[in-house]
């Protein structure tokens, strides 16, 4: 999910060889629904905060990580551990 337009995302997917969906939320409606707007986050524009949200098969939010610092992201190990807990309590 990103504020960038579809064309930018198509270019990114092509350049980086990504095959998962990159969704364009140019009007930030979904970002707002998830409470993740970063006002004035980039050169006077509103963008999304960096966040990872794990949703289970019933559409329930099961794990979240919202970055407090531009540098910090959850590690793949953190995310895999969160995914493992889904199986434990379906």
């Amino acid at each position, binding site marked *: 999910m990103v504020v960038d337009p579809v064309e930018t995302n198509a270019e990114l997917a092509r350049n980086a060889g990504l095959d998962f969906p990159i969704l364009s939320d140019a009007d930030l409606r979904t970002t707002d629904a998830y409470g993740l707007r970063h006002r004035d986050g980039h050169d006077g524009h509103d963008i*999304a905060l*960096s966040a990872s949200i794990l949703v289970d098969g019933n559409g329930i939010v099961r794990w979240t990580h*919202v970055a407090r610092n531009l540098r910090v992201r959850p590690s793949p190990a953190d995310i895999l551990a969160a995914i493992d807990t889904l199986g434990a309590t379906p």
Partner: protein
Amino acid sequence: MPWGLALGGLLLVVAGVVGYFAVVLLLAGRLAAVRSGAVPNWILIAMGIGLTVLAVRRAPNRWVPKGLLGVNVVLAGFFAHLLYVATTVPAAPGPARGALAPAFELSDQKGQVVRLSDFRGTPLLLVFYRGHW
């Protein structure tokens, strides 16, 4: 050789700071832990400051080791500011755990509409990122 010690200390601190940006700009994807924690960089910086402190102790009357110690402390302060203050973003709770994820309907990079409900029955990792790359 207090000068050699002090100069070595300065080089270590510079390597710690410059090395961080090399990791972030060139290898961020492969070294995410260094990007997040900067532990190797802080070890280099601590060793560098340690060497300049040693140099000052060995030659307390010389100003060069003291000057280089000062430069090292300023560089470490600049690095700490950059890592822990300048890059902080506003706090947001995000969606509550245990709540229904808000529905969405958005276009993917091929222009196809993707909905949250498309993923019913399967776990889904949503990653919001800042964009403007």
